[in-house]
């Protein structure tokens, strides 16, 4: 439990860093770090399969996507960037305070909750669960992926007009 707590605190801090940092590249790295921490949390919670997915897809693939987008779009001169940096602080300093307030405030809430144990018919094994009970989700996933493929085909194809 203590390890989990530490990991979760680190995760929130990494998320905070990704927002506060003024360099987009650093923000991406911080986001990947958040993902990695989430992966470790998942391992701690006995969810290895989801953890592997999170690590490879979120920490890996999404970071690659982000970095390529940044390299394609980010052309800010250094001077402008330094000037902006000062202003950014003004907009973002309330966030840590807000986090602190929310965190402390919520920690006083301790209403008892009744957590329902799984339905007796539920299968404990993830393989059975995924391949036998959640087939429709898989079908839906394929659908989403297909849509994504067309998205890539349409969106990343250059403009026909040549600009």
């Amino acid at each position, binding site marked *: 439990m203590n390890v989990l707590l530490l990991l979760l605190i680190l995760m929130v801090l990494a998320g905070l860093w990704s927002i506060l940092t003024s360099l987009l590249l650093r923000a991406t790295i911080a986001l990947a770090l958040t993902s990695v921490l989430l992966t470790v949390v998942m391992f701690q919670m006995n969810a290895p399969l989801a953890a592997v997915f999170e690590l490879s897809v979120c920490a890996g693939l999404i970071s690659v996507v982000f970095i390529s987008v940044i390299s394609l779009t980010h052309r800010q001169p250094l001077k402008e960037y330094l000037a902006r940096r000062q202003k950014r602080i003004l907009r973002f300093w309330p966030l840590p305070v807000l986090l602190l307030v929310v965190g402390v405030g919520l920690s006083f809430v301790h209403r008892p909750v009744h957590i329902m144990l799984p*339905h007796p018919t539920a299968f404990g094994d993830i393989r059975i669960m995924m391949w036998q009970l959640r087939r*429709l*989700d898989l079908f839906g*996933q394929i*659908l989403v992926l297909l849509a994504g493929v067309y998205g890539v085909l349409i969106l990343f194809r250059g403009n026909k007009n040549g600009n």
Partner: protein
Amino acid sequence: MNYLLIFVPFIALVLVNLLPKKLRPISSFLVLLLILAAQSIFAALAPFGLIRAVGAVRMEHLFGFHLLIDNLSLLLLLSAGIVGFSALMVAWHSIKDEDDRFNFTNLLFILLIGMNGISMLRDLFSLYVFIEAIAVSTFIMILLYKAREAYEGALKYLILSVVASVMMLSSIALFIMFCGGTSFEVIKLSLVSSGALARIAIALFICGLFIKGGLVPFHGWLADAYTSAPAPVSVVLAGVVTKASGIFTLIRLLTAVIGFSPATKDLLLIIGAISIVIGALAALGQKDIKRMLAYSSISQMGYILVALGCGTRLGLIAAAFHFLNHAIFKSQLFANAAAVEEQTGSRDLGSLGGLAQKMPVTGITSAIASLSTAGIPPLSGFWSKLLIIIALWVSGNYFYAVIAVLASLLTLAYFLTLQREAFFGQVSVKVSSVTEASAGMLIPAVLLSAMTVGLGLVFPFVIKYFVR
């Protein structure tokens, strides 16, 4: 039979993409047209028991998941079939580029599968996955032409859609924790015994659906997305897609899982009434045809919501019937807008005028659809609004009934503005050389307005099938 509704389009989609490049666009068009027509006919005739016998074949063991068709599913299947059909017809004539056209058909395939899935699902998370499939293909569809303002519409939609997803997923997590599963039966069974957090989960999910459906506190994205989308896309988007993922899912949840508690009823009535009024008022001030229609959509969805808010059987029937009607007349109005844009190159009401003389078919059909939306008899929109108002009155919500009645006047006012500025009136100089749109654009408009009139005339005869 049920499985065919999602597998046939899926297999067709895969097969069409394997064809040689030259054959793809035309074959995909024809195949999809055939599927949509078949689906519409199936859904329209099923209540009369003609196809029920065929559909009774049990294939559950083959695939291992449950897809159930009830009358509510047929409603969405029918709407999706009709609207998809019209959108495809419009697309075939308004999308000039072959690749774009092929991409549009492919995405429409995905939308269709998604909507058919939604109509038959009995699991909250699967519902979410299908909604997301629809949403992703919608983002892409809006950007089909990569028009400048479309990026804004798509981005706004994307951001709010992800926020909605977050709400829905949080609620799913809460359901796993407090109800022990995500299928409708499990949730329904344990909802009685579970505490406040399960209710929060319900509220979160409904909130997410409100965003997806563009109801009033969250309606910001809807007008932008509808307006900036290419013509055929806005037909399918306004006609059925946002309704399928928003309102339809809400109806499904209310009837199959949550039930009507006084708090839910109040929420639906209040949000619905606000949507009706704000949507209509916003539409009144618009100069862009599509934007006006988009706000009108919000207003009409408000009607469906207040009908649901009655919590009675009659209210549900009214909501379902208005859902179908809205799919018909709104997609037709967008098809008319597409025809106008195609022929005049403009959607600005200020620069149009007297088009009814230049484009008589478009003019007449749009007048029919407008009046139907405003609830003027004997068109089909009147009957659904009448049912809504009767349902509200009988269930004792007199105040909302009066709002619903008087808001029709606002609806009539903005549609009269639309008719006056665009169709009815003298031919303005800018459109003096305009001709009628091509036959392909007119077929859906004529077909849909024939449905509006026909449904309006035979409605008293078919109502017993609805009431049952």
